């Protein structure tokens, strides 16, 4: 089975996070269904040309988040009830928002101005998708 996962070297996020995100995406889109077997750690490592330990890390985190179930010696499957609430992204978002707040302070923007800028950015994104 070809996983369709791609790794970008210009993405500043670590490789294991990129892999996690794309696996979640496939599950969210229904390409990979609950209970379905997914590539083994070694298979995916060979396919993506990425070290075994990196894939192991991604699977471990996905397991911890209840998205996949890994049984020693039996491989991994999509959890029967995968919890796709994006805890990890939430943490990332918090970091980015903190950064926005810091930059805003540096430039002397008020919290209201900052909120407006964020709203404008969100509006732009909605328009791009239309």
């Amino acid at each position, binding site marked *: 089975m070809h996983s369709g996962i791609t790794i970008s070297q210009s993405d500043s996020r670590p490789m294991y996070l990129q892999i996690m995100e794309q696996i979640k995406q496939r599950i969210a889109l229904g390409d990979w269904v609950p209970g379905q077997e997914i590539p083994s750690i070694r298979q995916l490592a060979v396919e993506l040309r990425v070290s075994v*330990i990196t894939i192991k890390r991604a699977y471990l985190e996905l397991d911890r988040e209840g998205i996949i179930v890994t049984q020693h010696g039996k491989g991994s499957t999509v959890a029967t009830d995968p919890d796709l609430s994006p805890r990890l992204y939430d943490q990332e978002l918090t970091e980015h928002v903190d950064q926005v707040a*810091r930059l805003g302070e540096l430039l002397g923007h008020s919290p209201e101005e900052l909120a407006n800028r964020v709203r404008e950015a969100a509006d732009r994104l909605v328009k791009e998708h239309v």
Partner: protein
Amino acid sequence: MTTNTDLAVQFAGVGKKYPHFTLDDIHLEQEEGSIMGFIGANGAGKSTTIRILMGLVHQDHGMVRVLGHTMPHQQAAAKFDIGYVSEDMRLYRTATIDWHMRFIRSIYPTFDQAYAEQLCRRFDLKPQQKVKGLSHGQRVKAALMLVLARRPRLLVLDEPTTGLDPIARQEVLGELMQVLSDERRTILFSSHNTLDVEQISDSITFIDRGRIIDSGDKEGYLDRWRRMRVDVPPGVSLPSLPGTIQKASTGRITVLTTNSFDPAMTALCRDAGATVHNIDRMTLEEIFVANVASRREGVLA
């Protein structure tokens, strides 16, 4: 000492003295089924370490075990289990690739002809071609093909991707990963191309001036090392942060590198009156350079 059968490579207290270079107290362990990247500047001792591992150079002292064989005494037996490719690998200039395949097959009964032919196709090599007509990249791929087709349990590669173009590099890395689909096979490769090491290695060992300066799993490195930019207003002094490797201040901004990052550091700085502006992850190359620089200068408190 207990013998761990899951270790493919084990060095304990290994040393070798030359007139102008000393390899000092090398400890190294690599698990079976993993890829280890061995990173060092030119002349750091990578090749000497690898030659000791192969039994080509005898250590003055210390214990070396490779796949259960004690080196250098059992090197004859070990050589059947090890595949070694180095830059100075000599192929016969006037002979063809096919001649080399037959030659290796006559020595190593495990040589898999079908796999060798498959590799030739994937590496874009023509068996009837003579070595003297090959480009550098083709020679490296030919040497690698001859070794891979024996399916050795341990592959030792000295700078396997040096001088390869991007296509050939990806072909070689892909083939190395293919080897790892068999979880009993192990690869140790040296490189000064940290990008390759970052991509495919499970564990990483840094060597500098004949000493191992750090060794550990790759995810751990990338997780622990960070570069932070901190705004330190006048009159405020930065609290001492664990694992600080480098620290440089210009004006109010202090840039520091830590090898033991903890998210709580932001709060520590804030409590002291300083503000953390950026926390950047580092590439393996940046980690290596910072590591070497700090060891050479002497570690900061």
